Every structure is written in C-alpha cells, then in structure tokens.
C-alpha cells in the first residue's frame, strides 16, 4: 500500500477508472425506475433484485470522499445523512436538514441521494 494520501497527480489509472465508471453510469442510469426505488424503500438491507443490487454495488464502491453515511442524531430515534471526507481527521459533513426516524429510513434517504448524483452526473 502507498500512503493513504499520496500525490495521485501522476496516477494514470484514475483516467482508466473514470472512463470505466462513465460507461458504467450510462448503463446504471437505465436501471433506475420508480419500482426499483420503491423496492429499496421497502427493504434497504434485504435481498434485492439483481438490477437494484447492481446499483448498490456501484454506490458501495465510490471513492471514499464521494461516499455517504448515516449519522446518529439520537440513538434509535433520529438520523441524518452525511458525506464522508475521505481524509483522516476531517469530519463527515451533513448534506441536508432531513431527519429520519430510523437508520433504515436514513439508508433510503442516502440511496435517493446516490440516485440523484447518478442521474445528475
């Protein structure tokens, strides 16, 4: 492993990764349907259809500084969505004011944000 924060300016494989992800996102956008979003809302952590799982696999593989997480505001009562910094020692930042009543609901809120990023990118 190289240092967690080494200078990546000379890393050519970032270009390759970005190109791969661009093709991948083009395809993933075609999978997004209201039915699939509803499937996730019903069961964020259950067994999923292959279309939904493919999207989730992509979201779980995003670079850390593009990754979202759930933050506990009050255990078992209030949660919100944050974005990781990807830098050790730097706090995640809250992405919006939405408060969710359960971790599962926040997971779905996080999923909707990932979908929005995908469709807007």
């Amino acid at each position, binding site marked *: 492993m190289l240092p967690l924060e080494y200078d990546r300016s000379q890393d050519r494989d970032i270009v390759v990764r970005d190109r791969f992800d661009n093709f991948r996102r083009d395809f993933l956008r075609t999978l997004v349907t209201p039915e699939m979003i509803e499937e996730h809302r019903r069961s964020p952590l259950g067994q999923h259809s292959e279309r939904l799982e493919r999207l989730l696999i992509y979201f779980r593989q995003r670079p850390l500084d593009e990754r979202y997480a759930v933050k506990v505001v009050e255990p078992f009562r209030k949660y919100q969505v944050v974005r990781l910094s990807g830098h050790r020692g730097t706090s*995640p930042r809250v992405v919006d004011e939405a408060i969710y009543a359960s971790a599962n609901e926040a997971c779905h809120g996080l999923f909707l944000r990932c979908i929005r990023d995908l469709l807007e990118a």
Partner: protein
Amino acid sequence: MTPVRLFGYTDRISVKPGEAIQFYVSAEGTETAEAQLVRLIHGDQNPAGPGFVEQEVACTANGTWRVERQFTQVGSFLEVDDPEGRLAFADSFTLFAFIHPTWPASGKRQTIIGRWDGDRKQGYGIGLDEKGCLQFWIGRGEETVERLAADVPLQVQMWYFVAATFDARTRQATLYQVGVGNRYNGLLGKVALVDYDSHTSAIFRSKPGNLASTPFLMAGSRGRDAQQRACASELYWGKIDRCGAFDQPLQPAELDTIRSGLVPAMENLVAFWDTSAGYTDRGIGDLVVDVGWHKLNARGYNRPVRGQTGWNWNGFTDCFRLAPHEFGGIEFHADALTDCNWTSTRVVTLPRGLKSGCYAMRLRSGSGTRLSEEHVVFFVRPEKPQARIAFLFPTLTYLAFANERLSFDHPEREALTGQPAVLSDIDIEMYMRADFGLSTYDMHADGSGVCYSSYHRPIMNMRPKYRTPSFDVASGLAADLSIIAWLDQSDFDYEVLTDEDLHRDGSAALSPYACVISGTRPEYYTERMLDATEDYIAGGGRYIYAGGNGFNATAGVRDGEPWIVECRRRDDGYKPWISRYGEHYMATDGMRGGPWKVLGRATQKLVGIGLSSSGGGRSEPYRRMPDSYHRTVSWITKGVDGEIIGDFGLANNGAAGLALDYYDRALGTPPHTRIIASSGGHTDSYVVNQQLVLYSYLGLYGSYDWRVHADMTYFTAPHGGAVFACGSVAFAQSLPVNNFRNNSSCVLANVVEAFVRAGRLPGFAWVNEEKQWA
C-alpha cells in the same frame, strides 16, 4: 467553552476483589469527575431488548475525583541510553543508516537519527524535509539552522544507504545517499528509470551545539508540545536497518565499505546498532543493541515493529527466524500508539466480596447536553473459583478491533458489509482525534497495516452501548453483555475470565469450571489459549461456543505485557490489509500470523464448526435439523415449539447473522458431531469465506451458495467433555428478546443445565441404533 470530555483506561483489566487497580483519566473542559463503581449487566441499547443496565456498587473510591488533561506521546521511535553523552558530538562525526521510507513526501519534517532538539535548535540530525529529500543539519541554538540537502528525492518503499559526515577542522559537511534496492526488497524494480543516488557537500559556518538534556533518538527528535513539555517530534515513517556513528568524518571509500554490509571495527566507531542482534525464534524484544564499544543500547517507545525485511533481504526466506541478519528492518510510524503513559489519576482497592463480573468506573462530568460520561471497564475474577460456569470475555478480540475506523477510510468496508455506515458521535470524534491510536484493522497513514493494539489507552469497543458503525449493531463488549444479562436473569451461578487469564494460566484458568461459555466473537487466539481450550475440552470440560468466527486468527502476546496484542495478516484469510512478504511472522513470539486454519488448526477441529461466511444487513433464523430429534441430543431442543429457532434478535432481527460458522468434516469436525439446527435464506450480502475457495467467482453469495449458513452443533468429547456451538455472532443477541423468554434462550438453558450437572450428559444411555430416533 471547551466541551467536557472524559476518557480513561486501567493498568490491567483482569483483577480480583481486594486488589488494587490504577485508573488513568484524561479530562477536557473539567477538573472534576463524579466516580461511581458499577457492575455492567446489559450493554445494548436496542429498544427491542432490556436496554442498557448497570448496577451501582459501594466502593470507597466513589465520589469526586480530581482530573486533568493528560499528554499522549503518539508515534514509535527509539531512544538511546547514552548517560556519558558520547553522542554529543562537538567536533567531527559521521552518521550512517540503511533506510526505507514509507511516506517521504509527508509534508512534515522527519528525523531518521540524530541528537537534535528542534525547539531549541541545538544538535544535529539526518532526516527528510517536507518534500521527501534527505537532509543533514546542525544547529547551535541560533536562529539559522545549517542544512545540507540531497539533490534527488527519496523514493517511497525503496532501500537506501545514507550517511552524513562533518569535518570540524574544515567545516565541510557531506551527504551521501545510495539506493540499495535489489530484486525483492522494494517497490520498484531495476526497469524503473529513477535516480536514487545523491552526493552533496557544503561548508557549514559553525559546529553543532549540544544540550545535555537532548536524547539521541532514532525515528524522531526532541520537541515541545503546546504546554512546553518535552516530547518526541519530527517522527519518521518507514524502516531503519543497521545504523551508527563515528567521531570522525569517514571517507567515501569507508562509507562504501559500510554500504556493502561491513562495519569496520575502528577505534572511532562510537556506536553501531545491529538491529538484527538479539533475535530468538520465540520473539524479539524492544531493546536495539549497540554492538560497538560503548553499548549505547536503544529502547523502543510505542513498540516499533521489529523483524521486518531489511536492506539485504533477498527474498529466499520468509521469516526472521531463518536468516535474522536479513530481517534487521525496524518499522516506525508517527501514528503508532501502544501506551498513553498517562499519570495515574487514582489507585482503587476493590471491595472484598465483589461478585465476579464485568465492572466499570463510571465517570461523569457536566450536565444536560454538556454531560460527558465514560465507563472505564475491567473484569473481576473470583478470589477463588467456586461457580460451575465461567464466562470468558474475548478481550484479545476487543483489542484487535479497538478504535477501528474502517467505516471512514477503508474503501472496501461498505462492500463487505453490504450496508452504509451508521456513525455515532463517538465514532466521528475518534476519527478526528489522533491521540487514542488505531486498531489492527486499520492502516497507518503511510498505508502499512497496524500490527499492535493495546488497552493502555481508551478503547471504545470495550465500553457498554458501543455499536460498530459498519454493521450498526452492538458489538465487542456491548454484545457479549447480552450473555451476562442472560446468565444474570437465570439461576445459574457464574464467574468471569478474560483472554488474558487464559493466555497466562493456560488450561488451569478453565479447569475449575464444569462449563465454559465463550463470547460472541472469540476470534483472536494465541497458541497457548488454543491449546488450553483444546486440553480443557479433551479433559472432560464442557464448552459452549456462543458465537461465530471464533478461534480463527493468530495473535501474539508477550509475557509480562498482556495489554498489547500483535496481529500479522497473511494472504490466506479475511484481512483488512496484508503484511509484506517476509513479514508474516509475529515479533512477539515467532508464530506465523494469519488464520489458524492454515496451520492445521481449523476451528472445526476444536469446536465442530468454523467460519463459513459473513456479511451485514438482515439476519436469519435457524431451522431444526433431523439430528435434533435423535435421542442422544433431543434434550437440547426440549421446550422449543416448531422448527424455527431465533427469528428475532438485537442484531438485525435474527439469531444467525454477522459471521456464520458451519460443520465441515474436511476441516476436522469430529465425526460424531450432530447438527441441531441450521440457518438459511441469507441475503447476497453474505459471502463465502475466502479461506474456503480457491478462486473468486460470481455466485459465492447467500442466495447462490449453500455454504452461506450457520450450523448449531453438538458433540461429546473424551472424559465426559462436550461442545455445544451456536454458530453465529448474532446468536447471543437473540437471547434478551422478549425479556429472555424465547426459544434461543430455551436451547441455551437446556445446554447449560446439562453441562453444569455432575455426572454423565443427557442422552448417554441411547446406544442401540434402532431406538435412537424419537
């Protein structure tokens, strides 16, 4: 206003009533804390269970404690014992070292070796500048420090021979940097078009100053913290192999001789640290030996990693035991921590007659939203074992995971758990802080894996209420307390032990008990612990493996320093990082790191089942298997209605989850083992354990591969012994549901009742095959 924060740890975690225990507390935003001894009964706040339960206990130490903010020296380095100041060079000298930087361009200055006070600008040193160029510098306390830099930057993870000479007569300084990479010992091969060598010189205006108080350090130099306390700073990232000093300027030809591996025994050799001296097959200590005239030995702080491949390692041997002279690398990290070394806040003599269990000194300060609370946890063994049951807290596993920050900076963590991280305030605070160290699941900032963890620092997963963010379930101590709460509400009389006791005392720790119950994830085991468990069962002991992913990973603990665990990671197991080739053997005891399975000690061989798969998200129930109706074992499921066991739980609503263990005759499951129940229907977030497959391929997931399941098993052992294995990390967290009245609880109670009863086990009389099926 500074937020009120309290953190603490103890000198030891396993004590007896009447013994003294030291508490180390650091406080921010307050000068007092209210201390209250409590017994911890349940740790998971999940509202589907009994919630957090503690019991206040009378103790003379209860009351107001004076507390203060403590200083923590983070980073590993070596300090030379030089009482006569032989290294306080006032005239000519030479320094040399073999080095392998792991983060040269860190943006901060690093000292490799030297006697340098960076605050007072006195002394000398060789090190790296912010951009990763080698430097030699001297100072006399005046404003200007004289520096000589190399003209070629150091490459990451490559070996170099470096030397600096200073001729006091001519004031000439030279800096010598030569790459000594071979085909095996570095990141880049011969084909890379990279400049490694540099030879520069300069005329310095003055000679180095020398403060009597400046220590000669390796991998750091003297600095001051914000309160002007002396500390080690300008810490170095990387490996240092042999190094030394002469009190005259060596000529290039002489430096070439040292570079070839020979150190001339000249009169003016002041010190030569042979970093590979003193190794034994059973481990390497913290003392680095000066084999020169003056025996200026160096001692490690925050345990520098020893036995690492050296500048002359040629790839033929993979272990420091086989060719110690090729493994002289000592690895340093500026974020390493094995002991906070705080000043003792309080010595507490525990009350006599204290019930054996898990205790904490609860510290509180502030009120309302400014209330800060800390539980400084320890375990109380009985004065003399009397109960029939012992619960064994898997404290080595707590240590291995202590303060892990996988959810924040391990790119594969979310893919592994199949769910987004759920972060609590304490997780974020720990990610922000650099003073409480890392876990053996993390990487140092230079990308190298962390191989040491310690409880001489505040650790979060050895606290009640703690939830692992990447799974969003109570884990570590908070999960194991579900078994304590279950035992507490039953009529069973029990006592507690820790891994530390098992490692120290061997099977004598277990032998007083008819029945021993493990924690939910007893994953990290030393050889002594594994042997003791095997001997206990083979000798007639009755063992309940109440978890999953147990007895899986090797761990090293040095005698007399039980607070530090060592883990090395091999390519044949689940791993958050991997040791470099040649660095898989533990410096603690010479054992091979990685999974026990590879050493012929699969978990199945000990307790009947072993890791099949792991994942996150939804947990599943068990279904009774045909064996459960066999008359030799039907007593285990007595009172269970129907086929389903554990379709509930505080860990994702099922008794089978997180990590699952299965029966496998090919891995050593005893031949007569019965499968009482099995889980199934796991989601695709559960993936077959990498150790069970030879290739990676599509379909190793819950809904595709039958191996993704947990088996609940039972077998009888020699001399009246037996093992009941639950098969899943989540099992114990199903016990508290519905106020402990449920079928998981019923099964466990049947087994514990049978195991503690004197005499033969139920079912022993059913010997004729035709009558054995109900």
